[in-house]
């Protein structure tokens, strides 16, 4: 199995606060990897290091290495802008830009310099299809994205990151504000998408991680407590804390 992202002894400090305390983990290509853990466990911080969005936080210090396809993105000569073309991100709350559905999806491609109308049309259509949103949106492309329902907005955000043709998709608690039906739609889309992409799903809903991820990682207080195939982690957790967390003793 192919390793897509390799993290070696990663430490992240906010001010003097050590938020990640030496994490090492391998993320596999074309799999869904679930990151779970209570609030403040460091799971979201870790993925914000993958796409270097962490650079926008203040007083951050990073030590250690992250290799994506063998290239060190922490110490290497990589700028965040080009890195984020390869990595799509979906946030906890859907954040459509205040413009039309079409312009939301075309935002990234246009930044890349794509102006050809047919090429953009195609990109928008493909991305919406992949996010299971085309049928609902095909007649409403010029509508303001702010008018969509929460579930639609979140799938729009997924489609928007797909339009950049990334290789990795990071989802930071994408379903926390959604109802059961919208959640199921996102999960269906992810199951399809993993054929093409490497997916990392951050969630504090352990049941969701158990349902759709292939690998599960449990973080607590900035440390990676347990990592392995999802089935193994959920049936035979090797650590007491993992077991407590999965069974809902805290979090």
């Amino acid at each position: 199995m192919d390793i897509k992202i390799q993290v070696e002894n990663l430490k992240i400090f906010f001010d003097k606060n050590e938020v990640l305390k030496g994490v090492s983990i391998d993320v596999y290509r074309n799999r869904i990897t679930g990151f779970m853990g209570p609030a403040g466990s460091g799971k979201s911080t870790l993925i914000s290091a993958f796409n270097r969005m962490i650079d926008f936080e203040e007083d951050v210090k990073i030590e250690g290495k992250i290799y994506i396809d063998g290239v060190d993105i922490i110490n290497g000569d990589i700028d965040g802008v080009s890195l984020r073309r390869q990595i799509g991100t979906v946030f906890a709350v859907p954040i459509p830009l205040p413009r039309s559905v079409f312009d939301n999806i075309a935002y990234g491609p246009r930044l890349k310099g794509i102006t050809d109308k047919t090429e953009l049309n195609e990109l928008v259509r493909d991305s919406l299809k992949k996010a299971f949103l085309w049928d609902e949106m095909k007649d409403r492309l010029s509508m303001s994205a702010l008018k969509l329902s929460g579930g639609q907005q979140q799938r729009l955000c997924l489609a928007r990151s797909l339009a950049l043709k990334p290789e990795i998709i990071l989802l930071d608690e994408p379903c926390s504000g959604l109802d059961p039906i919208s959640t199921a739609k996102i999960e269906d889309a992810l199951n399809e998408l993993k054929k093409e992409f490497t997916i990392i799903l951050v969630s504090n809903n352990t049941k969701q991680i158990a349902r759709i991820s292939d690998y599960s990682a449990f973080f607590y207080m900035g440390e990676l407590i347990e990592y392995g195939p999802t089935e193994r982690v959920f049936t035979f957790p090797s650590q007491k804390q993992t077991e407590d967390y999965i069974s809902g003793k805290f979090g």
Partner: protein
Amino acid sequence: MRINPRIIDKAVKVGLTSQAFFTVGILVAIIAVIFFKGFPNINMEFIFSFPEDMGRHGGIFPSIVGTILIALLSILLATPLGVGTAIYLTEYTKESRLTKIIRFGVESLAGIPSILYGLFGFIFFVIKLKMGWSLLAGVLTLTIMILPTIIRTSEEAIKAVPRNLRIVSYSLSATKWETVAKVVLPSAFPGILTGIMLSVGRAVGETAATIFTMGSSLRLPTSLMDSGRTLAVHFYILAREGISMEKAYATALVLVLSILSINIIAYYIMNKVISKYS
């Protein structure tokens, strides 16, 4: 003896309400007086003709032109400077000693009274740079004077753009300037526009800073080096020297109406935006 707090509560409400309406009453009274006394003396001729006999007769056309020119030109200069500063402060730096110093500069400029701007413009532009009493000296002085207002309102408008929108833009591989130009500024535009409109109002109503830089000549300014008299200065001279009460009221009405309409448009734009985003 403890008075029932419910009764105090009601009494306070009545007291505060009446004070608020008393204050609005002052505003209404000012506008009403200006309107009723000024309106009978206003006609097309007054607006479009030249003053005669120090303004005792005739109209205010040169002052209208002078006012529009000085306000427009100073806005044209101050807007890029002000909005640029606001972008720099909010997007391009972290809070540091440097931003504190710049903010201190902006706050200090905002606090300097207009007479000191007049004093400065007079000694620097009029005398040292040998511009004489001129439109140019007035424009440059007012530019500096309204700059802090534009910086502060723009900064607030930019800060009000949700951080999330920036994060999304970055996550879609935009650079900083692309994010500012395509996401932040369009969203902040109405707020910035409000600041600009308020500054126009301030420039139009200013007296102390313009009288010592642009002068008070009654002719029509046709070049940057011409001196001239703004409406506010004209009104001040008419009223203080007792030249003509009718003309003073009429000029005041033109002045107040133009400023009020500018302000009302500014608030209208702002409210539209607030209702759009909430």
